[in-house]
């Protein structure tokens, strides 16, 4: 080993014996310190800090979205609860099942309210061709109902109006309003009115999807 490496203290003292060397030495140590600190401390900490900061910005955006969704859900939930009566009414007007009894009651009410006589009511489980052509979603189902009612001209027109305005949707597929023949009227057929209404209608219900669908 060369002599100069044997005594590092002496070598160092020699190195730092002049102001010029000391300047170089302190400058070099400072630069090395900055470089080492940058590599092992500042840069990793800074990159980690900026990465985490970016992640936090993403988290903030997610929180904002979730909060908006939650606020909307809470508002909807509150609205839903406050309008339970309306929801229940809606489920009656657009039920899960055909509920033919409600159709009978409804049509009977309409004819009675309009001083007419519901002579006949017939149900047909099959949907009308016009309904099939509409390509509604699978949950919407339809059945047909035909009625024959007697009454005056104005009362039968009122029945048609009430049927069309009924919230339990009844769609008139076809109708005819006949004035009874004079012979029939002479034989007492005009007890409830001079006219007869025949209406073919469809009514709807909404089947719930199966669980897991």
């Amino acid at each position, binding site marked *: 080993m060369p002599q100069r490496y044997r005594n590092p203290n002496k070598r160092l003292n020699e190195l730092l014996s*002049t*102001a*010029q060397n*000391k*300047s170089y030495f*302190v*400058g070099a140590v*400072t630069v090395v*310190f*900055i470089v080492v*600190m*940058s590599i092992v*401390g*500042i840069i990793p*900490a*800074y990159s*980690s*800090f900026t990465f*985490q*900061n970016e*992640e*936090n910005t993403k*988290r903030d955006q*997610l*929180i904002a979205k*979730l*909060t908006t*969704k*939650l606020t909307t*859900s*809470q508002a*909807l*939930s509150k609205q*839903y609860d406050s309008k339970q009566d309306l*929801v229940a009414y*809606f489920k009656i*007007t*657009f039920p899960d099942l055909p509920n033919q009894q409600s159709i009978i009651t409804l049509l009977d009410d309409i004819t009675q309210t309009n001083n007419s006589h519901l002579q006949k009511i017939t149900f047909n489980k099959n949907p009308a061709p*016009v309904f099939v052509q*509409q390509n*509604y*979603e699978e949950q*919407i189902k339809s059945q047909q109902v035909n009625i024959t009612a007697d009454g005056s*001209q104005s009362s039968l*027109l009122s029945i*048609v*109006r009430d049927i*069309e305005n009924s919230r339990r*949707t009844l*769609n*008139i*597929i*076809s*109708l005819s309003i*006949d*004035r009874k*023949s004079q012979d029939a009227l002479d034989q007492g057929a005009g007890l409830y009115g001079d006219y007869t209404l025949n209406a073919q209608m469809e009514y*709807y219900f*909404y089947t*719930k999807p199966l669980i897991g669908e």
Partner: protein
Amino acid sequence: METNRIFNLLKPVQPPPTFWDKTYDWILGKARIVILVTELLIVFAFVAKVIVDTQARAKDEQITSLKNELGFYSAQREPLFRDVQKRDSAYQRLWTNGTSYTEVLNEIYSYVQNPGVQLTVNAEKNRVSILGYDDLSSVQSLETQLKASPTFTSVFVDTLSLEQKEILQSTGQYVLVATLSEYKREPLK
């Protein structure tokens, strides 16, 4: 034996600093500041890291809490809302596709001059047919009024039959056919 002790009470006189002495002093002073600044930067970076990490943890907890709360709504409430929404949309479609004949029938009957005669009004889709027995002037009047109305796009007498004695009385059986310009319901408000 006396020994003379010499005390130098004069202030030591330093040789004037050279260029390198001054450079050394300057570097030593600046280097301290640079090292201090570097250390401060490190401390700042680590403190900032701790702060953002703490914030991240808090935000993660907030996200978890929000997700849990939303999970309740998704599982328990959302199916109800969606059911109502779908039902409502379906209902509106059914309503809008439904037919409306009230106004048409009212209009037709308002044109009929002699309601005591045989009269049958049929309606299906956009087609209305009126089968009646009346004098020809009334039939003509009915046809004219229907043609003048914007409710109907086309009106024509499909059938007109008169028997011999009816010719003399200008009375006969007719079938008037009209096409409706609109027969769907108004949308729900």
